């Protein structure tokens, strides 16, 4: 590694710590071992009754429990675990004294059913309305639920626990949130506002209403049996994504600051890009221009040509529309070079961790660079003949990987891409 600035004169942003939790397990080691062995973390849901649901499987993180049971509480705990791992690896600052800001991608927060039902039962009547709920909500009995169900609650807990500096930012760009958290960190370091940033993305929101909501939009796979075969990115018989939980955390630093303190550099965030699609609330513009533009902006931001990308960590949700659109747009951007790029979707094994996905997959992309081994896309039995990616199907592949593009696309026209490299480019 040479100059501390990139070819555009900006501080180079490196990664010095990473943490991850998914349905496969806690920590990079466990996740990487299972991910490269083609193990699925998708199971039939046991956390709540599945009667009456069309989709009954998810990548829940069942080995972590919180009391009281809330999705926001689990979301917070997953973030904490991933952050602890990232900070231990980075060995930066002191305990509870991280020397930079927090950017947190987090699922939108709301009062949840167990608490709502608790309130309803406390009214003491069998016919009531929101007015009656209001009458018993005050007086200090439910103060803890105010704090729990504030949107800023997860970030403020992490900011206090890890001593991040300034006002922590909680953000949502739907399924692109994790990538956006990393992008905000990169921008802060490039501006010189910070030498280090903690970027975390977390989602623990597999609950009945969340599953119903996606189900009503026909976004989820209904191939419930066997659950581990449901997520089939790039397959002809794919029928939707599988909801999942997880968290990813990254310590970003300027190259200069990381080398000055002798930190081990795990990789480089060489480029970030984002471009909004204004076509529809849930569907991509049929011409794919916003996604194409997003990938091109990211290449330009990294100062790389398409030929220099040698692996794509796809958004690859396994919805019929996403995978087709992702292929069509990627084909335009990479042209003749595309057949030489192995593509894989981690979501085949861990499911779609929604708000966390961008960061979870960025961590897996960096592990791919470290191990020079690409995790497989499992359940790839019947390739979709219209998707001509070189899919790393079913078995991990050893490959020379120097630059990975990781894509994230979300409802609301959110498109974000990252380029991760082993060395500064």
């Amino acid at each position: 590694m040479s100059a501390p600035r990139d070819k555009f004169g900006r501080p180079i942003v490196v990664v010095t710590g990473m943490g991850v939790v998914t349905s496969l397990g806690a920590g990079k080691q466990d996740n990487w071992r299972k991910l490269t062995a083609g193990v699925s973390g998708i199971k039939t849901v046991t956390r709540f009754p599945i009667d009456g649901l069309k989709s009954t499987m998810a990548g829940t993180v069942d080995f972590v429990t919180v009391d009281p049971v809330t999705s926001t509480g689990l979301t917070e705990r997953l973030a904490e675990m991933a952050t602890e791992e990232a900070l231990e690896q980075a060995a930066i600052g002191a305990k509870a004294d991280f020397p930079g800001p927090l950017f947190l991608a987090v699922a939108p927060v709301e009062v949840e059913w167990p608490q709502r039902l608790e309130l309803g039962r406390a009214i003491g009547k069998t016919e009531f309305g929101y007015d009656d709920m209001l009458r018993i909500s005050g007086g200090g009995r439910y103060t803890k639920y105010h704090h729990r169900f504030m949107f800023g609650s997860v970030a403020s807990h992490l900011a206090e626990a890890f001593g991040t500096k300034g006002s922590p930012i909680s953000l949502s760009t739907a399924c692109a949130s994790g990538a956006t958290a990393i992008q905000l960190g990169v921008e802060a370091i490039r501006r010189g506002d910070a030498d280090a940033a903690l970027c975390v993305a977390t989602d623990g929101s597999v609950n009945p209403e969340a599953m119903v909501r996606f189900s009503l939009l026909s976004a989820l796979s209904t191939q419930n049996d066997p659950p581990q075969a449901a997520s089939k990115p790039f397959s002809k018989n794919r029928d939707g994504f599988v909801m999942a939980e997880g968290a990813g955390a990254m310590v970003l630093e300027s190259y200069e600051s990381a080398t000055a303190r002798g930190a081990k550099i795990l990789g480089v965030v060489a480029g970030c890009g984002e471009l909004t699609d204004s076509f529809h609330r849930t569907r991509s513009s049929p011409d794919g221009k916003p996604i194409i533009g997003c990938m091109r902006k990211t290449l330009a931001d990294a100062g790389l040509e398409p030929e220099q990308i040698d692996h794509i960590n796809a958004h690859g949700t396994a919805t019929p529309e996403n995978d087709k659109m992702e292929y069509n747009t990627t084909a335009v951007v990479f042209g003749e070079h595309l057949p030489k790029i192995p593509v894989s979707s981690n979501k085949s094994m861990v499911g779609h961790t929604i708000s966390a996905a961008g960061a979870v997959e960025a961590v897996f992309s960096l592990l791919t660079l470290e191990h020079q081994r690409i995790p497989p896309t499992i359940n790839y039995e019947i390739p979709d003949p219209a998707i001509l990616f070189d899919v790393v199907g079913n078995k991990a592949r050893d490959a020379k990987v120097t630059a990975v593009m990781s894509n994230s696309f979300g409802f609301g026209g959110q498109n974000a891409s990252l380029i991760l490299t082993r060395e500064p480019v």
Partner: protein
Amino acid sequence: MTEPKSPDAKEVWITGIGIVSSLGEGLDAHWDALNGKKINIDDKRFAPYIVHPLAPVTFDAQIPKKGDQRQMEAWQRIGTYAAGLALDSAGIKGNKEILGRTDMIVAAGGGERDLAVDVAIMTADAKGNSSPAFLNERLMNDLRPTLFLAQLSNLLAGNIAIVHGVCGTSRTFMGEEAASIDAARIALARIESGQSEIALVGAAHNGERSDLLVLYEFGDYNLKEKFAPVWQREGNNGFALGSAGCFLVLESREHAEARGAKPYAKLTKVVADLAQRKQPGAVTKSLEALWPKLGIAGDSGNLITGATGAEPVTSEEKAFLRQHPGFAVRATGTMFGHTLETQFPLGLALAALSLSRGALFPPNDPSGFEVEKAGHPDQIVVLGAGHWQGEGMALVEAVK
């Protein structure tokens, strides 16, 4: 984050303002209402709780397709409407070239619930009629499929992209009052550093929601029974939720000048903090620490605060303000109610409006804490201290 501004930092202008609230819509209506000391409250609909209801608005004017309006709940319509007003005010409405590279940061909470579905499930449960499958079946059968899209925090930004074509980048910050302080802070930092040239920043809030009243009632934050101005709530503290949408167009001076746009004001500084409020006085200390970072010369001036009226934060903020008696204070909470994420952009908007009209609007406070201020302001401080966390300030200045 405490570094002095880089010498290369670009000057950032506020070139567009869109406001819709309980006082009306647009800049003239708001200027007249503020000067007329107008307050619009409804103490019947959610009695004993008081809200500031949205003034009548013809949404068609900014959201022409009925289909788009149907896809949104009230908070998104309010925000999409206010965003349209801001784009009109900046003169970039319909300008595909500029809108296609306009960056957007929206501060948002979540959307409306289907209260009837909630109540049906809760009453059945209270009657003991809930089998394990009951919740799932009711949700599967009774929820409107597209309601989710009206609830997702990032779908206000999504709707603004669809309706108005703002599609450079799109980021949604969450976290109550602090979310919009940070939205302004990040948008300013990006433009100052050249990472962005033009941005749409703002928020929207529907305060006429029983489910939100329940959420804030958990913490005993709602104003009940009798309305009083924010500084006169010692015996009966709390906030009255308000409905409002407010968006600003921020752009570099070069970008504005190149297209011949006129500024309302310039946004010079935005600073933010997260005080650990377990210690009494933490908010006062946090605000004291933020104050010198604004770089204000002199000990007199003007200040617009989003003070909520809830305690203990309002008293702690007042203790800070008493240390700066030369500053004429205006609390937007009295006139607009508490609009959560929208309160800080509203403060910025009213500061820019006041600077462009050459006067600070009059006090609306029988307690005498807010005082008359004659003369032409050239700087206005905007302050936000969230009802339970998050503190921030901005400095808005006249363009000379």
